């Protein structure tokens, strides 16, 4: 079945797709978002870790391989809002050095743009959806920008208890910027600090797409079609333009949605899968893949978690899942001898019973029961995110197995290199030193399987089709009306949580698309 042609069809109704939908619908464009999962409502966001799993990834699995398989299900999204429906909303930005990795360090890639090109959009996003934090305090590490529209979030003992130890270790901590409301913002209430952010915030204090960009997009006329799984991007016979997408609807009926512009915003692993599965005789390696780089340079962050048990009640049930404090002090790429890459240091966050149990994953039986009682009020943690360098071997490719619609499954192959492992170890060592200096009666590193957090790359931006898949706006080098959005277009990842940058790049890309509309539809 063929639907009426629209201006823009957006594949994926998560963070990046929602920004585009809002900007373009407000610009008068007819926008349709196709989302493979349900259309979650705020009333679906039950305060329960158990029920909260409903909003985590489902549908066709991604096959995971490599030394460090990407553990995407714990953090990924499924359905309207995507991962941003239940994200932690830590909003650190990338720093200028992240954009110049090749020229400064001979590693990875240079971005085709500089920090200064993105900075105005960080500020714009903050004004649009609300960010709480202290910009002046951060500016010891980054260029000055606008103040955040809301003051920092409240802090609790589980965060404050670390401050002296960090100071003694030469790591100044400042209030963390978060996409949450410390005060009422644009009619959305202030946070209640009960730590259920990771299963979704039904009051709208967390800046999820439903209460920000996607809500605005819907008001401006954008249509969201849930349970709609896109399997191919379609092209004209000459292979010079995309013409729309093929998808299966909520009744598993095959549909075609024609559009002047196609935007892929289906997450770092799914966008390459779609491009590769859309191969034609004119694009035998897949769309936008003359470089052979579609699916390559997948990246993840590693996380060094340090836990400590205190004698006092640290109120660890209070706060948000986002962190209270952060530091860029270890962000310079050579902060640790024998290791390379940025580290982003954080402390202070609410924990739930799953976190308590996972903080000592080796315990079971009566020892676990005893530990849970002690940890219930006395456990606190610090987490240091570490950068991975882009590696062409870390990739998404098509598998021979197929999903229920006959589309090949994606296979995600990921291994951390020796730089990443060295940085992870260095961050553990420093975290343990801080914890020991904090007065904790016990402190330990949460080692075990090396964690993967966030997934970036696969459709990286660059200066030409020789070195990348898209330009700095997310536009395909080869097909002018095919665009890609989200963390997949990052050519390097830094150590900062990516969503603020995803929003900023999407805002920048969407405004570009709107302003250059005439060139896209010729």
């Amino acid at each position, binding site marked *: 079945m063929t639907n009426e042609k629209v201006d823009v069809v957006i594949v994926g109704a998560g963070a990046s797709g929602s920004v585009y939908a809002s900007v373009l619908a407000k610009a008068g464009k007819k926008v349709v978002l196709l989302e493979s*999962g349900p259309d979650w*409502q*705020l*009333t*679906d*966001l*039950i*305060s*329960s*870790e*158990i*029920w909260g*799993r*409903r909003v*985590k*990834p*489902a*549908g066709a*699995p991604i096959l*995971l391989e490599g030394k460090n*398989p990407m*553990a*995407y*299900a*714990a953090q990924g999204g*499924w359905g309207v809002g995507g991962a941003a429906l239940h994200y932690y909303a830590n909003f650190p930005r990338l720093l200028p050095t992240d954009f110049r990795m090749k020229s400064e360090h001979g590693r990875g890639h240079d971005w085709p743009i500089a920090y200064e090109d993105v900075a105005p959009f960080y500020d714009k996003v903050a004004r649009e959806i609300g960010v709480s934090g202290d910009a002046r305090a951060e500016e010891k590490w980054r260029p000055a920008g606008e103040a955040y529209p809301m003051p920092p979030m409240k802090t609790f003992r589980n965060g404050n208890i670390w401050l002296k130890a960090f100071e003694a270790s030469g790591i100044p901590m400042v209030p963390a910027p978060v996409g949450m409301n410390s005060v009422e913002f644009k*009619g*959305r*209430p202030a946070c*209640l600090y*009960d*730590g*259920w952010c990771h299963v979704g*915030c*039904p*009051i*709208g204090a967390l800046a999820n797409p*439903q*209460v920000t960009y996607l*809500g605005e997009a819907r008001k401006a006329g954008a249509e969201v079609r849930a349970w709609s799984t896109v399997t191919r991007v379609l092209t004209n016979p000459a292979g010079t333009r995309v013409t729309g997408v093929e998808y299966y609807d909520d009744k598993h009926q095959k549909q075609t949605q024609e559009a002047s512009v196609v935007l892929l915003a289906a997450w770092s692993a799914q966008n390459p899968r779609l491009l590769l599965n859309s191969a034609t005789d004119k694009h035998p390696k897949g769309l936008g893949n003359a470089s052979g780089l579609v699916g390559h340079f997948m990246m993840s962050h590693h996380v060094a978690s340090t836990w400590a048990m205190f004698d006092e009640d640290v109120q660890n*049930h209070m706060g948000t899942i986002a962190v209270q404090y952060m530091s860029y002090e270890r962000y310079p790429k050579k902060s640790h001898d024998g290791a390379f890459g940025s580290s982003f240091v954080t402390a202070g966050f609410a924990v739930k*019973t*799953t976190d*308590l*149990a996972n903080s000592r*994953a*080796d315990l*079971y*039986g*009566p020892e*676990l*029961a005893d530990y*849970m*009682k002690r940890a*219930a*009020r006395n456990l606190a943690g610090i987490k240091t995110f570490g950068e991975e360098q882009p590696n062409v071997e870390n990739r998404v490719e098509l598998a021979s197995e197929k999903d229920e619609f006959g589309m090949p499954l994606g296979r995600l192959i990921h291994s951390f290199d020796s730089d990443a492992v060295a940085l992870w170890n260095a961050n553990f060592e420093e975290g343990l030193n801080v914890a020991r200096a904090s007065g904790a009666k016990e402190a330990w590193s949460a080692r075990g399987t090396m964690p993967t957090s966030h997934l970036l790359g696969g459709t990286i931006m660059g200066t030409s089709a020789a070195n990348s898949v898209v330009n700095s706006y997310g536009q395909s080098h080869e097909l002018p009306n095919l665009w890609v959005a989200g963390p997949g277009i990052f050519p390097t990842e830094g150590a900062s949580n990516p969503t603020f940058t995803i929003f900023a790049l999407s805002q920048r890309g969407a405004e570009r698309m709107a302003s250059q509309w005439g060139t896209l539809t010729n």
Partner: protein
Amino acid sequence: MTNMGRRGFVKGATLGALAFTVGGVEAIMAPGEARARNVPFRLLDAHQGETLEALGETLVPQAREAGIAHYIDQQLSVPPHEALLQARIFNVRPPFADFYRTAIVSIDESSRRILGRDFAQLSAADQREFVGRMRQNKIEGWTGRPGAAVYAVLRADAVDVVYGTMEGYEALGIPYMPHITPEKRW
């Protein structure tokens, strides 16, 4: 934006405890209640249920009484995208029943080979020792998914039924503070 109440003002209208079949009629109850009422399993056989209870109790005390086997059984009977099992978070590929069935087979095969009887028939001390070795992938001749992965998923399920509920929070003295309260205190 939907006009939502603040903490606890709104309940999840369509969600409650799990649906169990009693005498051909679906009834909503917590897994522990289903166990206490001897609700028949939907997919598991008696031995599988007994083994899951023994494993759960070894991993997290009170998991048996909290109905871990009934919880897993009920969750295996719903479509994977509706499942609340930790298998989903651990990137286990559906159907999840395959994971649990093969895990039970691996555990029993190893238990019989090393200790001469099925896991559920071992003494509590032997069960504990066995699980400790399974956690460390130190059971020789083990087949199937790595023991550490089986440990992680089953332990997480047991943590859910014992500590993940409102009663679990209450037992630990942690204020639950829901925005939207799960019905039936689940």
